[in-house]
Structures are given as C-alpha cells and as structure tokens.
C-alpha cells in the first residue's frame, strides 16, 4: 500500500515546494481538500488523476496563478501570498499541453522571451536560446529563425520546454506536456526529457493522465482523487 504522507525519509534539506492543508474550490465543487505535499530540490514529482481531479489547479497554486482558499503554499521558503507573483513566475518554468508558443515571434524569440523580460542583453539572450535549442535537439542554425507554425507538434513542444528552461528556473511545472503528441513523438520526448533532467537537475512537478509516463519520469507518483493526494511507490527505474 502506498505511503499516505509525502515525507521523504532521510532528507534534512528544506523542501522547495510545500503545500500544507490546502483547500481549493470552484464554487460548490471541492477541487483540493486538506492537501499536503512537499517536494525537495531536484526531485521529480508526477501527478496523475482523471481530468477535473485538480492536477492543473495544484500546478497553478505553485506559480501563484491561483491562491489557496485555506492552508498555505510555500515556495522556496516563502508563502505564495507574500511572493510578488511576477517574480515567482519568472523563477518557475511552465510547460503546457497546448504549448502556447507566441505565433508572432520566431523560435529563438520565443525561447528568449523570459530572458528579455528579465532584461538580459541581446547577445546573452541569443547565446542562451541557441544553447537551449541545442539541448532540446533543435539545431539553432536550422530552427532559430523559423516561425512556430512551420514546426511539427513534437518540435513545438521541444521549443516549449526550451522556453520554460530559459532563465534556468529552480522549479519547472509541466501540465500534460506530451498529452497532445502522437505515441512515437511522445516516446522520443520522454527520453529527451529524462536526458535533460539528468543534465540540469531541476525540481520538476508534472501532470499527466498516463500512468506509464508518470512512473517513467517521476521519482514519486502522486494520485489525485476526490481532492486528496496519495502517493504510489517510488519509480522503479530512473
């Protein structure tokens, strides 16, 4: 039987993200109820559950797109109510199923957007964008100047991942990142993701409805049901 509580044994470091007794409702519907979760630095947590179970809501609580009704969400030691939401989001990479690339910007400009918001010089932005495109397997010489609509779904999601990693955020949130892709591309991107993770060691929280994917990519797999979170066993393979 899975461990009901989300404490990692033998770790003394303070968690990067911790949710305590979080409750969240949409009108009469209770989405999250008395939810507690803590995630350590460098950990990869996969959240599964049927649609409407509150997976995306949980992600949005972490980057302050939503605030809990009761309970606390603490990111890097500070309550999200006290964070400047803009500053918090800049430290949080976000990858979503619909990808949401900016159609009026080139691939390079898409990847370099958060650095641009952060006021990096153009040379530094370009260098970083090229580095990341290389990392996600899109040679910049070929892809940097192209437009999002010219790319396949899988290529676009690689750009989405690169964009989320642009300022090397300590936390990356992924909302069904591979959900809209075909099976082969998914396999490919999963492998790619594991490679990148091993390289960068960011804290990752990702949401999926695919159990295999959850166990393949998560150090821990949490199941959201009826507003509560229960943890399955740690992933067998890494």
């Amino acid at each position, binding site marked *: 039987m899975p461990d009901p509580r989300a404490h990692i044994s033998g770790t003394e470091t303070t968690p990067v993200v911790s949710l305590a007794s979080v409750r969240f409702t949409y009108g009469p519907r209770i989405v999250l109820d008395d939810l507690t979760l803590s995630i350590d630095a460098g950990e990869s947590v996969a959240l599964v559950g049927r649609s409407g179970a509150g997976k995306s809501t949980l992600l949005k609580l972490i*980057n302050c*797109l939503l605030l809990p009704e009761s309970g606390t969400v603490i990111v890097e030691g500070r309550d999200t109510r006290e964070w400047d*939401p*803009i*500053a*918090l*989001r*800049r430290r*949080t990479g*976000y990858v*979503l199923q*619909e*990808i*949401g*690339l*900016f*159609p*009026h910007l080139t691939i390079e400009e898409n990847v370099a*957007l*958060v650095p641009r*918001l952060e006021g990096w010089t153009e040379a530094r932005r370009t260098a970083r964008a090229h580095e990341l495109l290389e990392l996600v397997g899109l040679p910049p010489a070929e892809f940097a100047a192209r*437009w999002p*609509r010219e790319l396949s779904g899988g290529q676009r999601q690689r750009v989405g991942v690169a*964009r989320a990693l642009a300022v090397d955020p300590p936390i990356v*949130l992924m909302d069904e990142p591979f959900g809209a892709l075909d099976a082969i591309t998914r396999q490919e991107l999963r492998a790619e993701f594991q490679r990148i993770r091993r390289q960068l060691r960011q804290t990752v929280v990702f949401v999926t409805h695919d159990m295999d994917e959850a166990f393949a990519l998560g150090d821990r797999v949490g199941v959201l049901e009826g507003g509560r979170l229960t943890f399955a066993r740690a992933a067998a393979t890494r």
Partner: protein
Amino acid sequence: MRLLSFWMSHRSELAAMVERHLFLVLWSTLVATAIGLPAGIIAAHRPRIGRPLLAAASIAQTIPSLALLGFLLPLPFIGGIGPRIAIVALILYALLPIVRSTAAGLRSIDPAVIEAGVAMGMTPRQLLWLVELPLALPSIVSGIRIATIVGIGTATIAAAIGAGGLGEYIFRGLSMVDSTVILAGAIPAALLALLADGVLTWVERRLSPGRHRLARAAPIAIATAALLVATLAAAELGPARPSTIVIGSKNFTEQVVLGELLAQTLERRGVAVTRRLNLGGSFICDRAIRSGDIDAYVEYTGTALAAILKQPVVKDPEAALAALRDAYGRAGLSVLPPLGFNNTFAIVVRRADAETLGLETIDDLRRMDAQWRPGFGYEFAERTDGYAGLASAYGLRFTAPPRVMDLDLVYRALATKQVDVIAGDATSGLIKALDLAMLQDNRGYFPPYHAVPVVRSAVLLAHPEVRQALTQLAGRISEDDMRAMNAAVDVDHRDVAATVRAFLARLGT
C-alpha cells in the same frame, strides 16, 4: 472626354479638394484610432464596460450622416460650419470599426498563448504590448482600413456643411444637374478609397506573416463596377458646357427671382444665357463662380464679407462695398453696382400704427416702448447683435418682455395685434402682403446687406455688353420692389419668370 477636360481646367482646385479630403479623413481616422484602440482594449478585457461601449459606437454608426452633421451643428466648441464639425462626425463613424476590430482581434487570441504569457511572469502591461497587441494588430489594421474607406466616402457629405473636399463637386454637380461635375468629385473619391484599401491591406498582410487572406477580390470588384457605371453614366449624360453666360442663384425665393432678373436683363440685350438657379447656399454659389461653373449671381454685401470672405462686419455701406470689391477683385471676380435694396434685419410695425403715430425711424419707437410689446424670432432674441444690441444702440426700454416665436410667425403675430413691433426680414413679401411698415435704421445699427451682382471678371472683359446690361439695374430695385416680387411668388404663387418680366417691363430698361 468632358470629364478629363473638366479636371484639366480645374486641376489646381481639384488638387486642393483632394488635399482637403485627405486632411479630413486622416485627422479623423487618427483621432478615432487614438480613442478606439484603448476603447477596444477595454471592451475586450472588461466585457461589462465593453458592451455598452460597443453599443454606443454602433448607435453613432446608424445615424444618417447628414442628420449627424445637423445634430452637431449647434453644439458649442465643435459646432459651426467648417471642417472641425466634419472631423467630429467622421470620428464618430470611424470609432465602431476600430473599437470592434480591436476587441475582436484581442478576443480571438489563443487562450493558451495568453496563459503561457501570464505563467512566464509577464505583467499585464507586458502581456498587452508584447503579446496581445502584436497578435491583434492585423485585425486592428483591418478596422482602421474599414474606417478609412468609410471615412473617404462619408467625407463627401461634409461638403454640405462647408468642410470642403471632393464632395463639393458632387453637391455642385447635383444642384447644377451636371453629371460631369458629380463624377469629377465621385471618381477621385472612389480612387482614394481604393488606394487606401490597397495600401492598408498590404500593411495588414505584412503584419500577419504567412496568414494569407482572400478577402481582396470583393472590394476591388465592387469599386471597379462602380467606376464602370460612373464612366458609362458620364458618357451618356450631361449636355455640353454651354458657351453662353451662366447665371446662378442661391436656393431661396428672392435669390431665384434675382437670378431670373439678371438672366432676363441679359436676354433683353441679346446675350445668350444659361440658368443654374437654386444652386444651394452662399458657399456653393461662391465655389461655383470661383471655379467658373457659373459666371454671375447676386450676393449680399454683409453675407459676402462675413460668411464668404470671413472679414469683420463693416457697418458703412460704402466701406463694405469697397472691402468687397477689393477681396473679390483678387479672386478674379467683379462686383457690379448695388441693385438698390438692402435685405437687412428690419424693425417692422403695422402700417396703420406707423401712419397714425407718425413713426418713421427706430428712434421714433422710443415714444412707444412703455406701451408696446415686441415679438422676435429665436435668433434675434438670443444674439447679442440682435435685440440686446438694438436696445442699447437706440436706448429702447420695452416694459413688456418680448415674445419669442418662430420667425415665420412674427409677421402674423404683428398683423393680428398679438405683438406691436417685430424684427423681420427687410424684403419679406409678407411686409407688403400683411400691410406692414418698416422703420428706418437711422442710427445704422444693422450691417448692410445690399444686393450686388458678382460676375467673373474674365466674362466682363470678353463680353462688355454684360457689364452694360447689368449696370443698368444699379439702384433700380427698392426694398418695396423686392418685397412685391417676393410676395408675388411666395404669397400669390405667381411664376418667377412672369413676375420678373412684369417688373422689367415696368422698369422700362
């Protein structure tokens, strides 16, 4: 190819009209964009504010353009004849397409893109400038394009209130029933619209890389068809420009009578005449004579100075005439000697009263101001150069407050003894018909409105007999004569030509 030769002979005027037309449209579109863009953003972001905003813009759009100009005319600051009010009206028309397309452009952005932007830590302002506006830009530009095209069309109406532009040719052509002149304005306006459409569509497409659109065919087809019809109409319609002397007139009875009078006077001397009577307001007549579409018409000194030449009011008739001769002379127009009568404001009493009480001048009225009740039209009652000025100029103190009513009613109110003294129109036919008498403005309070024939100097040079004939009318038409002719046409419904013929016969020229 009468049209081409018309354009050739009017090319500097045409250039000025195109320039004025563009001035009206560019300014109004610019201001409408400055207002409509933020309004569209608000409409998209806050539907609760946005919906009434859009509704208001839609309502403005549905008001017929002439009616809208009419509504705006009396407003303070923006009202009054001229380009300002036209620009305001054009702004109102341009708002709806701009607000609507801005809101639609913003609302049609993929929500995932917005979500990504927010999650990346964009401030609302960054989101607007870096994501929303660039993505909505093609839609916004298409709104501006539509506003511009509508503006170019609507601006032709603005000529009706003296704002100028290509509509002047259209209105002039309509009132002269000359399709060449209509087309001279309509075709450049259509071409401008096509040009604006082309340029802005190009801009629109440049702003949406790769998103190809096919909406191009429709406007081009419509415009081409319109041009074709117009050109065919030009070929079919319209008599050739006459080589005779063209007499014009404004669009009220006295003017038509005077136009006919000039025409018959010339015809009696064997000069061939074409009548373009009932043209429109002073402005239209002025433009028509300056561009050579008419050769002569009768103007009033006060009107010419104030309304056409925009000069200060001159109270001395001789000085007014001199100022007029000077200003017109520089425009290649000659002012012939006054016809005699002065169509000014008139202080009018019942003839019976004037005779029994011995009233001849407005000064004499002071004897009666304790007992008499005055009646005025709205304008005379309100204007400082109306009743208030008159009272202080003559030291009149009416104990009874003036009754204010519609100008058409004051004559009858006087005749039926509801009031005892009125301010009217010096040459109104009703003065004679209702047996009223006009008191002399012995202190020269009212500016002079002497009727003078205005003739193109070139015509006078080429046809000396025109000057000879028209000079014979100098000083021959008294206020009484004019009143009698106005009354014959307006009160007795007599034929204008017959009335004038009878008058000239009596004059014996």
